[in-house]
C-alpha cells in the first residue's frame, strides 16, 4: 500500500469554485443538448404538419412516436436539472448527515459526461446496507470526483471503473477500482489537492493494487464528527 502524504495547499482556495464551475459547465452543456433536441423534435412536428397540408394528415402512430420522443427528452432534462440542484445544495451546510451511497451515485452521474468523453464507463456498486456519514457534502463530492478523474486519467477505458462504499467500525471507505493502462504515478494532479481535501474531511487517501492488475483508490473518512455511526433513514 502506498500512503499519500503531500502538501497541496497551493491552489486549494480556488479549487472549490473551480470544481463547481466545471460541473456547472458540464451540466449546462447537457441541458443545452436536451433543449436542442426538443427544438428539433418540435421543428419536425411543424415540418410534418406543413407537409400534411399537401400530402394528407399525419398518421396517428407517427404522432404518438414523436410525443414519446419529446417526453423522453423532458424526463432526461428533468433528471439532469435535479442532479444540478442537489449538487448546488451540497454547499448549503459545512456539516450534514448524508447517505454515502446516494452521494456516490450523484458524483458518478455528474462525472458521466467526463467519462463518456474518454469512452469509459463508471458504475456504482452497492455493498451491504446503506449507511450515513456526517461530513461536508461538497468537500466529499469534490474528493470523490478527483478520485474518479484520476481513475479516468490512468485507467484503461475498456475496463469498467467502479465506485463502492464499505463501513469499518468508525470509518467509511470509498473504493474506486480501475485497471490502469500502466502503473499509475501518484504525483501531479490531482494528488496534492486530493490529499488536502481528505485531510479537511478528517480522512486519508491511499492506492492499493489487487488481483488482475486492478488498482483501488481508497478514500477513508470518519462516519461522524464524533466517530459514532448514524442510522440510515
Amino acid at each position, binding site marked *: 500500500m502506498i500512503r499519500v502524504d503531500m502538501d497541496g495547499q497551493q491552489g486549494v482556495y480556488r479549487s472549490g469554485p473551480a470544481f463547481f464551475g466545471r460541473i456547472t*459547465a458540464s451540466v449546462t*452543456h447537457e441541458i*443545452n*443538448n436536451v*433543449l*436542442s*433536441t426538443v*427544438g*428539433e*423534435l418540435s*421543428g*419536425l412536428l411543424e*415540418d*410534418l404538419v406543413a*407537409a400534411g397540408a399537401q400530402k394528407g394528415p399525419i398518421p396517428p402512430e407517427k404522432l404518438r412516436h414523436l410525443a414519446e*420522443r419529446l417526453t*423522453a*427528452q423532458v424526463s432526461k432534462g428533468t433528471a439532469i436539472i435535479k442532479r444540478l440542484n442537489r449538487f448546488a445544495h451540497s454547499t448549503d451546510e459545512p456539516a450534514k448527515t448524508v447517505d454515502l451511497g446516494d452521494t456516490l451515485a450523484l458524483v458518478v452521474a455528474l462525472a458521466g459526461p467526463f467519462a*463518456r*468523453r*474518454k*469512452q469509459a464507463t463508471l458504475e456504482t456498486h452497492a455493498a451491504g446496507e446503506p449507511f450515513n456519514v456526517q461530513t461536508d457534502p461538497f468537500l466529499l463530492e469534490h474528493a470523490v470526483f478527483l478520485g474518479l478523474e484520476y481513475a479516468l486519467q490512468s485507467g484503461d477505458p475498456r475496463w469498467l471503473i467502479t465506485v463502492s462504499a464499505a463501513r469499518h467500525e468508525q470509518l467509511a471507505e470509498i473504493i474506486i477500482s480501475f485497471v490502469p493502462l500502466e502503473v499509475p504515478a501518484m504525483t501531479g494532479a490531482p494528488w496534492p489537492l486530493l490529499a488536502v481535501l481528505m485531510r479537511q474531511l478528517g480522512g486519508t487517501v491511499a492506492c492499493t493494487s489487487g488481483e488482475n492488475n486492478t488498482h483501488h483508490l481508497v478514500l477513508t473518512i470518519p462516519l461522524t464528527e464524533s466517530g459514532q455511526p448514524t442510522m440510515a433513514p
Partner: protein
Amino acid sequence: MSALRVLLVDDEEELVFTLEERLQLRGMCAEAFTSGAEALKRIAQQEFEVIVVDVKMPGMDGLELLRQIKTLRPAAQVILLTGRASENESRLGLEQGAFAYLIKPINIDELIKKMEQAVSRRTKE
C-alpha cells in the same frame, strides 16, 4: 438538379437522427452518424457535398474528424456545430478548412442557408 448529399455527425443520437429526418423532408439526401469513425467509413465510400460535424464528441472529436475529411475528400465542405464553450475550437476549425460553424441550439433555416453557401463555394472551387 440532383438532391444535395449531406452527412451529419453528432453523438447526440436523438438530435442527429431528428435533424436527418427534417433535412430529408426538405428533399435532401441526408445521412446521420453518431461517431466520427462510422462517419469516416461512409465518407470513404460516398462523396457528400456538405458534412455537418459536432465539435465535442467522444473518441474522435470534431476537429480530428475535420482533418481526416479534408485528407480523404478535400472538396467536401464542413460545417461545425458547437456549444458556446467550444467556440475557440470552432475558430481553430475554420483555420483548418471548415466552411463555417454554428452554435447550438441551431436554427434549421440558418443551417440550410450555410449549406447552400457551402455548396456555392464548392462549385466555385
